[in-house]
């Protein structure tokens, strides 16, 4: 009985969260006529017409490229900084550690709208509007607290004696970090990487603000601007959304085990 209840509850929740995705997946495989039919058709005919048109007429590939560039650069830069910061904050003797960690957390609490103006102004004066770095730098700033917190808590959980052993074996701080600590903190680094990538991949607000030229726009903005003044290309939007979502889903599926061990490791070791 308990099991049935569990399955039903889980089923409802999973179905609920998947519904939007299933809907646009469904829509993306319909034909123009099927979309507007009333009553709606549940099972699409499996046409790939919208995919073709979203790539050909709406240059979807172009947005994908921009998103890949921005999201992976953000992930790379944030991780590089987080690893050094996280290691230092968890292991070296630094004053005001708590204050530093606390203020990092505070930074991540600002509503985006409150910093939108200043960020835009800074990017404008740097002449970075409509450039990749114009988006990557704010993304790094916004994801850094997350990265530092995850990596720091991971480094903290690793036994100190292992680090001592490495130092006695002849490692300096950098060798200890790269040859011993980093491999051991792998699941944590990985979790951070995925979360940062997903954030940068999905981010809409700053992308819309900073990237006003079509050539540099990322997927979320690109898709949002598919609609013209008099047109609402539902099919293409659905197809593009599927294309935008699938890489993330694959990524998470693929590294599911690592992410779960990453998210729970800190809690279990205590």
């Amino acid at each position, binding site marked *: 009985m308990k099991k049935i209840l569990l399955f039903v509850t889980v089923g409802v929740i999973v179905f609920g969260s998947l519904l939007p995705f299933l809907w646009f997946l469904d829509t993306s495989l319909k034909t123009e006529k099927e979309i507007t039919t009333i009553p709606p058709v549940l099972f699409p005919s499996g046409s790939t017409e919208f995919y073709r048109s979203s790539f050909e007429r709406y240059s979807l590939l172009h947005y994908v490229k921009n998103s890949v560039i921005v999201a992976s650069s953000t992930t790379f830069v944030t991780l590089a900084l987080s690893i050094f910061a996280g290691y230092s904050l968890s292991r070296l003797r630094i004053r005001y550690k708590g204050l530093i960690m606390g203020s990092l957390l505070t930074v991540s609490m600002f509503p985006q709208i409150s910093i939108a103006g200043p960020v835009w102004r800074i990017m404008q004066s740097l002449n970075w509007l409509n450039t990749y770095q114009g988006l990557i730098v704010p993304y790094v700033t916004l994801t850094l607290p997350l990265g530092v917190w995850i990596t720091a808590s991971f480094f903290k959980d690793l036994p100190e*004696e*292992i680090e*001592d*052993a490495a130092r006695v074996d002849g490692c300096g701080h950098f060798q200890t970090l790269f*040859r011993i600590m980093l*491999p051991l903190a792998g699941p944590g680094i990985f979790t951070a990487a995925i979360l940062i990538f997903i954030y940068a991949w999905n981010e809409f607000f700053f992308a819309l603000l900073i990237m006003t030229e079509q050539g540099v726009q990322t997927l979320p903005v690109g898709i949002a601007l598919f609609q013209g003044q008099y047109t609402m290309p539902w099919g293409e939007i659905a197809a593009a959304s599927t294309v935008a979502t699938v890489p993330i889903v694959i990524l998470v599926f693929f590294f599911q085990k690592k992410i779960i061990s990453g998210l729970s490791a800190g809690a279990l070791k205590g």
Partner: protein
Amino acid sequence: MAGLILKDLSKSYGEKKVLDDLSLEVKDREFCILLGPSGCGKSTILRLIAGLDAQDSGVIVVGNKEVSRLTPKERDIAMVFQSYALYPHMDVFENMSFSLKIRKTPGKEIEKKVRDAARMLDIADLLNRKPRELSGGQRQRVAIGRAIVRDPELFLFDEPLSNLDAKLRSAMRIEIKGIHEKLKKTIIYVTHDQIEALTLGEKIVLIDQGKIQQIGTPSEVYDHPANIFVASFIGSPRMNLVKGKIEISDNRLRFLSDAFSFDMKMNERIAGFEDKEIILGVRPESLIIGEGHIHGKVEFVEHLGAEKIVYAKAGNEKLIARAPAEKNFIVGDKINLSFQESNIHLFHEEKRIGL
């Protein structure tokens, strides 16, 4: 050449003074045990020698080289940790060869050194395993192997056996002793286990509250404890310590306590402590049950198989005596106890007097 010299070593963590002007000299190739209760500062000494922590003041010399301000990397020292501290992501071979790789030793030499050490420690068939696939004893061997391959000037052992079960521990004790004889290197070995110290050490350094209490061979610290701390720390069950005072009459010395009085031969050193508070110590094995003028009552009996430990009360004093296994005691039994003058230890204000 000296193995190790520590001179006026001090270290505080915040307000707490962990080591206080500690000086120690260990001879080359000596097996030196640092023994003391937890928190006495013995592990801190190891960390300072290894360079993992920096001393506030003082000098450390290893071999002929002062290393006081050098990084761990620059000191030629290997350390075996209590938790073994093996690298979980490397197999046994990688664990043992890691320090040589860091030092850019040629591959062939690494291979040879690791294989030799593995053979010596009987872990040659485990070289491809990961630490998590090993038992506690095997991990301990790998940790020792990792230290051996470096062929360092000095070995540090930080309570290496405390995570093993009792049977394995006594087997490893013998093995570590054997390793020391083969390697012929200086070893500093930290433990809180006095049996480990007495069986392993050539030199035992007793430490309490950041200060050295006594340095000596196992028999010296056991037979001539320098103070009350050493007397009560070494030996299990612990030495009986009875408070009292010395009186002189008819050219005889008499020790007087609540529980009993005891006549001794005249001794000028002890005579000087007349009417002062004295503590008389006698080890449980020297306290003989049978004849005697100390009257006690059995409170508790511990059966250890080969012998019995009898806890008795005489006056207000609790006394512990060892007895042969075949003797039977029942709680409440009245017993008489005695001891020989040659087996007593006298202390005044914590320090040993006389003899």
